[in-house]
Every structure is written in structure tokens, then in C-alpha cells.
């Protein structure tokens, strides 16, 4: 057993670049272009036990391999929410339950759980950006008493584009001391919720968390950050998870670097303070 930087003991004897066989046991259609895949090993166990915010490399060997955040995990499976955007993801969107895949992981540092303990947390998500953030939310729900007030501010282009609708509308509102605010970009027939972009909505709600988790398209981050800073949030208290082109997932192939840090190994979770002294190249 080698001490692995992900803080997780796993059997290093296997070659980290060779995936293990797994299968898709359930597919949930979240939005027209996002599906959540429930993945277990062939003997119905979890392929690996990721911490919230960690990543896994999913592959259809004859098509390709790509890194996805693990949005949640169950007793014997892990969940990955995948948006159809490239060759592999479009093919994934056509597979059926029972399809065998290759999987390897866990990769990345994951969210700093000790840092969040006992704090009121604000989760800001945009579109598919909610997927990695949700892994932390679900962790907080499973250990509810360890964490303070939970506030979720989530936006998407349209009602149909809202991911994890079941959680947003049914499960999370029922959780004690947890508020969920949802917005969509444009007015829509049959939608009586808030309309507008996430940054403006956050400013309007003016929440007072002790820690913020932020993940969404670059445009949303670009406009939300100044608002958070204006509301006096310290950079060390704004945590984000980044997306980069990844091939090896174990900090060797060189492409996912920001300065001297590799997003697949030293990230994907960084605080704004950490990002400040890295080159703005992500």
C-alpha cells in the first residue's frame, strides 16, 4: 500500500492507468443533455469509495476515456452526472442499463471536510456545475449535525435544464435548517419560481454563510466572484472545483496544469486564495 496523495489507501499493486470492469446499473435522465449513471463493479460493489469532490475516470474502451466528478455514492454504487458534449459523452448517452464500462479512481483531493465542519455553507451551482457540489451536499445531509445552515442557490438555462430535480424540489427542502433557491435564465410558461441569473440572485438573497462552494460555467464564476467579494467573503472561504482536459488522471501526462499544480491530483478543489497565487490559466 503506498500512501497516495488522495489520502486514501488503495491497492497500488494494480496499474493506475488500467481501468477495472464495471457496469451501469441505473440511468436517470436529469435534463435533455444530462444523465446520471449509477455504476457498480460486476460483483455489485462500489468500484471505489470516493470522498466528496473526488473524480473518477470512466471509459468505453473502444470510444475513449474521460474524467467525471462523482456526484453521489450509495452502498454499492457511485453516481456520475454526465452532460452530452463530446464523442464519449454522446455515446454514453446512447447506452442502456447493463452496459459494461471501464472505471478507475478515485482521483483528486476532494472537498476539505474538516474545514467545513460546523460551518453554515452556501452552495452556488450553475447547470451541470451542481454535480460536483452535490457530492458535498449529500455528505452534509448524511452527517447533518456536523454542519450548520445549508443554503443552495442553483440556476440553469431553463426548467428542463435543472439537474437533480428530485433533490431540488422534494428532498432538500424537507431537510432541517436548509434552504433551496432555484432560478432559471428566462421567463417560462409553467414556471412560477425566480427568474434571473445566479450572480444577481445571490446578491439579492445576501446570504451570510461562513463558507461558500461555487461551481458552474466560467461566465457564472466571472460574475459571481466579485459579488461574493463585495459581500465581504474572504478568498479562503470561497471554494471551487475546476474542470480541465485530463488524460491520465494521476498527475503524469502534464496537460491539466495550472502553474505547478495538476488539477487532477492537487485539485480539482481549490480555494480562491490558492487560485490567487496560481497563474490565471484555467
Amino acid at each position, binding site marked *: 500500500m503506498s*500512501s497516495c496523495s488522495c489520502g486514501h489507501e488503495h491497492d497500488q499493486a494494480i496499474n*493506475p*492507468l*488500467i481501468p*477495472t470492469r464495471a457496469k451501469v446499473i441505473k440511468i436517470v435522465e436529469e435534463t435533455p443533455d444530462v444523465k446520471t449513471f449509477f455504476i457498480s463493479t460486476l460483483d455489485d460493489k462500489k468500484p471505489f469509495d470516493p470522498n466528496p469532490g473526488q473524480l473518477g475516470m470512466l471509459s468505453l474502451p473502444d470510444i475513449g476515456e474521460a474524467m467525471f466528478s462523482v456526484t453521489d455514492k450509495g452502498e454499492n454504487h457511485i453516481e456520475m452526472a454526465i452532460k452530452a458534449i463530446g464523442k464519449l459523452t454522446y455515446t454514453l448517452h446512447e447506452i442502456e442499463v447493463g452496459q*459494461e464500462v471501464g472505471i478507475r479512481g478515485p482521483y483528486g483531493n476532494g472537498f476539505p471536510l474538516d474545514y467545513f465542519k460546523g460551518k453554515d455553507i452556501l452552495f452556488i451551482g450553475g447547470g451541470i456545475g451542481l454535480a460536483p457540489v452535490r457530492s458535498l451536499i449529500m455528505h452534509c445531509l448524511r452527517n447533518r449535525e456536523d454542519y450548520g445552515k445549508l443554503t443552495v442557490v442553483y440556476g440553469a438555462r431553463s426548467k428542463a435544464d435543472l439537474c437533480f430535480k428530485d433533490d431540488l424540489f422534494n428532498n432538500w427542502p424537507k431537510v432541517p435548517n436548509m434552504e433551496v433557491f432555484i432560478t432559471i435564465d428566462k421567463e417560462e410558461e409553467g414556471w412560477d419560481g425566480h427568474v434571473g441569473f445566479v450572480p444577481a440572485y445571490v446578491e439579492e438573497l445576501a446570504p451570510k454563510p461562513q463558507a461558500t462552494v461555487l461551481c458552474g460555467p466560467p461566465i457564472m464564476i466571472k460574475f459571481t466572484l466579485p459579488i461574493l467579494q463585495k459581500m465581504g467573503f474572504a478568498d479562503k472561504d470561497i471554494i471551487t472545483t475546476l474542470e480541465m482536459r485530463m488524460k491520465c488522471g494521476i*498527475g503524469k501526462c502534464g496537460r491539466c496544469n495550472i502553474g505547478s*499544480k495538476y488539477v487532477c491530483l492537487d485539485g480539482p478543489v481549490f480555494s480562491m486564495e490558492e487560485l490567487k497565487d496560481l497563474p*490565471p490559466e484555467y
Partner: protein
Amino acid sequence: MFTFQESEIKNLLNALAKEYKVFVPAKVGDESKFVPYDDNVELYWDRNVLLSVKDKFFPHTEPMYKFKTKRKTVEIEPLASKDEPVLLFGVRSCDLQALNCLDQVFLTKGFVDEFYRTKRDQATIVALGCNEAEDTCFCTAMGVDPQKGNGADIQAYRTQGKFGMEALTEKGQKIIDILKSYLKEENLQVPETQGFQLQPDMDGVAEKLKGMFDAELWAEVAPTCLNCGACTYICPTCHCFDISQDVRGEEGFKYRCWDSCMFEEYTLMAGGHNPRPSKKERVRNRFMHKLCYFPERYNMLLCTGCGRCLNVCPVNLHITSIIGKVKEAN
């Protein structure tokens, strides 16, 4: 130190060839590279080889595993790695230091790259000192001793028509034992390496580069670059790779192959976003990685002064002139 006459070299190599797969530096047409030893190889001692030993440990294209994808099933079959002891005879100090850089990348930080490790463990390295530098050499400026390789199993010298050898590890001692009958115990006067024309001044460069992300230097230098992969593929320390697959119907091989940070699609994401979209970002990242990021991560320069990129760059965009410009920048 043990010595033998240079005229004897072929007998020694034949003796070693019984135990190891021996690679020697040779002239092949206009190029020079390490080739498997046999009698009619044209041995090449007076200069460092053009193609380094990098591809003996990190091949240009290497199959990783075989897979079968029938309808919904997937089978993955790792490939057995060839198990044969390899001997590299005549590796220069700069290429040896490059191997130390590759060791840092492939063997540390929580994950070990098995493909690289197996080849590295099976290899015995006989380093060879340089008596004369080429005009493009600048290894001393990068902290490399041309007469003393860092991490060799045997340090060899070539002077006065003789080869001298000192075993530094028991892998090296095993070589000395095999060649016992050919060797004479004697000390050779190891000459000082001559002929260095380039002496880039490296002190403070890594530190200074930290603050030079937005320097004008990059916009000035980048337009010259053609963004080809010549420098990265010839560099003994460059280690970036891509992973792809060769599929035939329901079967295929997943392989990894060299990639270059200078190529446009290197960081291109599926959605179209590219953190390093143009030449400026890519040229900056290449030199920052070699002179600033890698030292910050592994406290070791990712350039050993071998000078190959100075030789092959189609537009003579030389790392030594970049270092000079970084020093001058205010």
C-alpha cells in the same frame, strides 16, 4: 577504477550481450541514437546522440492493455511486460539527469507508472563522461557535471585511447565482475570538459519567472514559434503523453503515445474551452514548466542543458536566449 583499451570495446560488448540486451550509441545514416548492439554497428563516441534514451523508458507509442467490447460486455486484459535485463552503454550526464527528472514524474507523488517503472528497474546504465562539449551544450549551467553522471550504475570515461570504469551500485559491480578478465585496475586522469560556448546564468531565474506570467517577453517571443512538436519530442526530459485506442471491430488496444504541449488540441476541452488557446500561452507554459513550475514541484530543473532543442528548432527559438531575456527583464 578499471580500464580497458578502446580497441577491445567490441569484445566487452559481446561479453555483456550474453547477459543483457545491450544498447550502444551509434551513427545510423545522418542521425545518432541508441541501437541494439551487434558487430556491424557503427559505434559513435565523440558527441552525444541526437535521439536520447528517453524512448527506452518512455516509448513514443506503447500499448497499455488489450480490450474486447462485444455488445454490452467489456473485457480488459493487461499486457505482460517484457522481462529482459537491459544495459545502456554510454549515456551522457545530461541524459542521465533527464532520467532523474522522468523518475520524479513517473515514480512519485502518490502514483507509480508501472510501464515506466518496470523498464527503469530492468535497466543498468553505464554513464559516459564528455571530454568535449558541443557549441549547443550548456549542461554545467544547469547544474550537471559532464564527467560525473548523477544516478549511474557505472561511471565510465573515455580518454587516451582507453575506457575507465567505476562501479557505483551493485548493478554496476555485476558488470565489472562479468568483464573481470578484460579489465586492468588502474587510475585514469579524467580530463576537464572543454569547449562550452553557452553559459546561461540560471541563478534567480526560477524565482523571477514566478512573477513574469504577464511579462511582455512572451508576446514578443511567441510569434516566432511554429507550435510544432520538434523541441518536445527531441527533449530528453519532456514526458507529456496522450492516451488513445487502436480498435479493430470488437477488439482493440489502449495505447499511450508522446504528446506535445505545443499542439493546439493538447488542452482543448470537449465543450470547446481551451485554457491555452494561442501560441503565446503555449510557448509561455513550455518555458515556465521547464524553468519554474517543475522546479517548484520537484525542486529540480526540467532542462539539463543537452542542447538538442537548440539544434532541431526550425526557427532557432532557443531556451538559452529566453533565459537571457528573463535575466534582463526588469
